[in-house]
């Protein structure tokens, strides 16, 4: 349905038969036309057409929607005068009436309807012909959107039709002989009568064809009450030469202002232009894809997709399996490393070095502490005390108490000694003694010489005894 609402920008028109396949393709700045001769026997020409189209497909020139132009002489036309209706009912009536009047079973024909002011022009074509004609396109899965009889396309391509009764005579055939003719008659834009004449076994019989045309023109005159005054010819005029051609209305070539080297190519270009201008042109329904073909396409895609999936899966499986085996090796080596470390740790910790080191550190802390070493103490004290002081007794007690007893020349010497001991520093500004105090400093004169007897107590650690209990003079 999409094409009913959208105007196509490009259309490819194609027609085959009479030993040729003709194409009108969109090209840059206009249209490109081509005619390929078909050299194969008639029953194999479908394959040749398919091959030609395949070659063009590979070049990427067949991307636009397709209009397949049917030879008009393969169709049957009938103007039905029917009451107006609407929707699906109307089309059903048309179909029933067409079947009745054409005398053909609906199962064997395909119908197209063309509404005209005076009725509905029914176009019928045998399904078997249509199937054969379209098979090259269907096999290649080409996007067919329109299937139009050439006479209808030609009628619609005439942009300024005469106001009176006029007609188009389309001649089909090779250079040597005519195979069929179709005449479309009407007034203005109204198409009233289309008659296709197939010359089966009557080839080159121009007189018989002219007679048929005369009868058609007379039928038109009788039916619509006015004679046809102008005929336009499409095709090789020479095929029509006969003695009584003068009895037909004046005939001119149909002016086809379209691209193309031959009449057939110009007809295709004109029909393509008409479709671009009027996309709702009457058309046989485009063929649905054959289930087998659809299944084949689906199968092809499935095979492609599954192949890709299988390759991806197998590749991923292979890659991950390789990674897994590499990782397994790594895990094994890591596990053995860990086991080795555990064993080593067990060996190291069986003897409980942590607790042993802790207890040994405690012992070493006591042994290596300079404050517990009287040798260090003697060194520092001897360094600090002034020369005016004599120490006669030194006591180094367990709780860090150091008692100095002795004599000094003066009280100030004792004070100097206390100050020196207080300011004694070891280990970067750390005082050796926590506290230094003088217990007593008493002057005593012996043989005219006065001495000051003193006792100084110093604490290497914070004192643990009460101040009242500090060591007094013995």
């Amino acid at each position: 349905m999409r094409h009913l609402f959208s105007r196509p920008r490009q259309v490819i028109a194609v027609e085959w038969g009479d030993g040729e396949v003709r194409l009108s393709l969109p090209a840059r700045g206009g249209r490109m036309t081509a005619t390929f001769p078909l050299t194969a026997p008639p029953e194999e020409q479908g394959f040749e057409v398919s091959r030609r189209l395949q070659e063009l497909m590979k070049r990427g020139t067949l991307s636009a929607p397709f209009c397949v132009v049917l030879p008009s002489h393969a169709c049957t036309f009938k103007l039905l005068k029917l009451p107006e209706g609407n929707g699906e009912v109307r089309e059903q009536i048309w179909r029933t009436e067409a079947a009745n009047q054409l005398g053909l079973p609906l199962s064997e024909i395909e119908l197209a309807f063309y509404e005209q002011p005076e009725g509905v022009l029914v176009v019928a074509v045998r399904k078997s012909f249509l199937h054969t004609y379209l098979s090259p396109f269907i096999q290649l899965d080409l996007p067919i959107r329109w299937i139009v009889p050439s006479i209808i396309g030609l009628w619609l391509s005439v942009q300024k039709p005469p106001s009176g009764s006029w007609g188009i005579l389309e001649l089909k055939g090779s250079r040597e002989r005519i195979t069929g003719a179709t005449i479309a008659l009407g007034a203005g834009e109204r198409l009233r009568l289309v008659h296709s004449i197939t010359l089966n076994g009557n080839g080159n019989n121009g007189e018989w064809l002219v007679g048929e045309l005369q009868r058609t023109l007379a039928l038109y005159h009788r039916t619509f009450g006015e004679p046809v005054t102008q005929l336009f010819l499409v095709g090789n005029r020479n095929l029509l030469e006969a003695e009584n051609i003068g009895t037909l209305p004046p005939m001119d070539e149909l002016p086809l202002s379209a691209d193309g080297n031959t009449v057939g190519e110009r007809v295709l270009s004109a029909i393509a232009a008409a479709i671009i201008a009027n996309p709702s042109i009457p058309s046989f329904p485009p063929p649905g894809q054959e289930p087998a073909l659809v299944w084949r396409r689906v199968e092809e895609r499935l095979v492609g997709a599954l192949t890709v999936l299988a390759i991806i899966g197998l590749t991923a499986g292979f890659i991950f399996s390789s990674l897994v085996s590499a990782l397994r090796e790594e895990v094994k080596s890591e596990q053995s490393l860990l086991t080795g470390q555990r064993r080593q740790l067990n060996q190291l910790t069986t003897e409980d070095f942590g607790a042993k080191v802790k207890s040994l550190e405690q012992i070493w802390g006591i042994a290596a502490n300079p404050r517990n070493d009287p040798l260090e103490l003697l060194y520092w004290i001897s360094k600090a005390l002034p020369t005016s002081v004599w120490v006669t007794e030194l006591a180094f007690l367990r709780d860090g108490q150091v008692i100095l007893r002795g004599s000094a020349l003066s009280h100030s010497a004792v004070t100097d000694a206390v100050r020196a001991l207080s300011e004694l520093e070891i280990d970067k500004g750390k005082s050796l003694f926590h506290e230094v105090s003088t217990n007593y400093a008493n002057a005593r004169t012996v043989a005219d010489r006065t001495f000051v007897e003193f006792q100084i107590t110093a604490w290497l650690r914070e004192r643990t005894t009460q101040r009242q209990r500090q060591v007094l003079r013995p």
Partner: protein
Amino acid sequence: MLLVTLVIVAVFGWLWGASALWQYQSLKAQLQDLREQTAEMQKSVERAKEQRKRYEQLVQELGKPLSEFDPGRLNAKLMEQVEGALTQSKIKAETVQPLPWQINSDMRATRLSVQVVATTTQPTISEGLQSLTELLMRLRSMRPPVLVERLNIQAISQPQQGLRVQAQLVWLIPLEDAVLKKWAAQTRRPTLRR
């Protein structure tokens, strides 16, 4: 047939791939976990090695923990060592009295101590002080070191000028756990005394 074969191959491939991916992720997580464990274990091993090294250093300084504890023999050895040091320092020992020994379970060591009363034999105080310094250095350099817990130095003039030294010397000797357990079981007392 081709389609069915392809479906089977694709399903097999994807199942294989998915299984391998799952295994890969699982192994990766396991490897990560193992690496973390290894790193932790390496740290523990390093710590243990450091402790062992430190232990060996301390053993060099303090002596190896005793696996057999004989207090009588140890006391005799301490007295012998002290007397030897006094003699070497030319200090005359008046008294070398052993004191009760103790086992300190916190320090995992035994504490042996002796009380010493001695006098210097040098004619001057200065020389006496030198001898005393030598004595203290000798005690400090013993293995395990002999600690001076109490020290009293007094200048004396009788019977000759010199220094009288009273000291309490202590030996802290590390003990093996087995010894500690054995003695704890024997006595059931927090402090073991002779």
